[in-house]
């Protein structure tokens, strides 16, 4: 008993042909699948889609300080003009760039150094990793208070040490000085987040094939060359994701400047986020604050594009391997 062969591919039963096709058909066919995602979707829609829409709307209106929405007045792009013309805008933008770039760069480099130093097995390695990670785990509020006390202008331990070592004649006022405040805050931020980079890069280091390093050693590569030609290229993907995540986090940080200085003195430590908060909840300038937020959205979306791209590349790699 044998069966005819070589039939052309295609549906030949009426049953198959009658099944719904196209995107609608696929949606219907998968309708139960959506049930699993639905709770998450609802939460995300309510708490994300709505606010985004709302922020955009607010940015085109002047809204009274008490947020009575029926009294809002259409002002077109006025709020955006106000933002871009404001003299504070430039200072805050420069602060934000310094804050983001310096924090990210130093935290990444410290993290890389720590990861490379911790890669070798030694007694106490696990304990050391755990200790270094604690600042990342504790709340930024706690970190802010601790460092505020360390920086205290009269009784701060850092100033006292500086005097003891003869670096200065009297304690430095770290936080109440336009020249030192931003750098002082960046140190706190780095203290808190460098170990994130460390953990990411440690995980990345484990993907560097031991055989390649041995091969390079046999080929006569120095320690530096082994790092540069073998280790570092393997870390490129992780590094990109790490730097992006740090940048996003730093761009969005709020607690450290807000709790430690409130943006002062004289706006010297304001970054975008704290400034937006001050405009909205301090001065009730809802429209201008929203315009700021929309501009921020656009910047973040650009970063987000690269973030998703970096993540999906990892995903595809995983699916393939």
């Amino acid at each position: 008993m044998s069966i005819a062969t070589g039939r052309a591919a295609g549906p030949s039963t009426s049953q198959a042909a009658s099944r719904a096709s196209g995107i609608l058909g696929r949606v219907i066919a998968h309708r139960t699948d959506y049930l699993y995602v639905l709770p998450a979707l609802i939460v995300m829609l309510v708490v994300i889609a709505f606010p985004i829409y709302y922020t955009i709307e607010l940015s085109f209106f002047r809204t009274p300080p008490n947020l009575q929405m029926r009294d809002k007045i259409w002002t077109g792009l006025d709020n955006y003009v106000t933002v871009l013309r404001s003299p504070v805008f430039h200072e805050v933008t420069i602060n934000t760039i310094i804050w983001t770039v310096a924090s990210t760069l130093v935290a990444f480099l410290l993290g890389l150094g720590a990861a490379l130093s911790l890669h070798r097995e030694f007694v106490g390695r696990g304990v050391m990793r755990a200790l270094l990670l604690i600042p990342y785990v504790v709340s930024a509020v706690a970190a802010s208070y601790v460092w505020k006390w360390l920086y205290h202008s009269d009784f701060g331990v850092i100033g006292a040490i500086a005097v003891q070592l003869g670096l200065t004649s009297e304690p430095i006022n770290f936080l109440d000085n336009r020249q030192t405040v931003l750098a002082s805050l960046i140190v706190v931020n780095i203290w808190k987040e460098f170990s994130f980079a460390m953990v990411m890069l440690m995980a990345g280091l484990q993907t560097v094939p031991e055989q390649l390093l041995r091969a390079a050693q046999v080929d006569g590569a120095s320690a530096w060359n082994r790092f540069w030609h073998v280790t570092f290229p393997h870390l490129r993907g992780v590094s990109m994701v790490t730097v992006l995540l740090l940048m996003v986090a730093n761009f969005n940080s709020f607690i450290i400047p807000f709790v430690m200085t409130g943006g002062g003195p004289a706006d010297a430590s304001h970054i975008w986020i704290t400034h937006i908060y001050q405009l909205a909840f301090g001065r009730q300038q809802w429209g201008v604050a929203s315009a700021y937020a929309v501009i921020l959205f656009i910047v973040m979306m650009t970063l987000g594009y690269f973030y998703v791209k970096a993540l999906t590349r990892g995903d595809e790699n995983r699916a393939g391997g």
Partner: protein
Amino acid sequence: MAEVVLKDVMKNYGSLYAVNNVSFTVEHGEFVALVGPSGCGKTTTLNLVAGLIPMSGGDISIGNRIVNDLDPKDRDIAMVFQNYALYPNKSVFKNLAFPLQMRKLPKAEIEAKVMQAAKILDITHLLERRPRELSGGQQQRVALGRALVRDPAVFLMDEPLSNLDAKLRVAMRSEIKRFHHNLNATVIYVTHDQLEAVTMADKMAVMHGGVLQQYDSPANVFANPVNTFVASFVGSPAMSLIPLDVVGKGTDVALKSPEEGWELPLSAQNARKATASSQGTVVLGARHSTLKLHKSPVAGSVPGKVYTVEPTGDVTFAQVFVSGAVVNVSLEPTAPIAPDEEVFVEFDQQRLHLFDGQTTNALKAA
């Protein structure tokens, strides 16, 4: 125990037809092997029978009951997976007990059945272990045991031996065959290894590109492949296939090499087949054992050039270039033959195969 009937079974993903109009019947107690290269749709077909993926069309019935819309749990089947799919967080005992628990059997009965299955498969001493503490062969037994405890109507097996090493695979092969024999079970067995199919199955269903090519006993598939695909897939080494032109008329027909110009006269029976070809081209097929090598031309032979000689012990295989195609010939181990030698290949007119050059289907005498 039950028979399984597939009728016009379809599975498509958009315009991709993974299983296209497949129909066959597995008789009660039969061992059927679904065989084909990877991506041919055999595993998809098995998953359709199991109910793990929804069908796009057609009907499947198990034991006179249409099961198209039934959940896997309601189809009265058991399945053994390629990677065994043992629950890693459960002990062997609990793995075996799980199907019975799901059916809410009383505890004492579960224990009795598990012990019985464990005894049959000789895994009683492993019951308290976790799957990861077992060797590949032991995991395989547990997977079989989990299928066995329930006494299902049909056993489905998805490449159950492909993760084992070569020696163990041969041993387990005979065990599964014995298992089928003792239980008189209906088995559908997916494999990409035609040797497994040929050695174990009562019938084999050869699939290619989602289409069922041939469904028959291994002996018949081997003797009468319906097309060049089946011919080249079943048997090791594969059947040699040489594309040739048909020349001449009536009973005076020969096959001509388009490259080398020689002609091979055909017997009357073969001539009638050759003239039935749609475009005047055929593919000549011959198994290695039906061919003979000569150092000088004889009647019914064509010229060729030796490429490699592979002694395997009791048989030596020679690969010979004939009209641009590679032809496998089996020889006495002592045959004095060397690579690059010019030889003549003699065909056995009674045992050669002719396929249409265009459709690749086996030609029948017109």
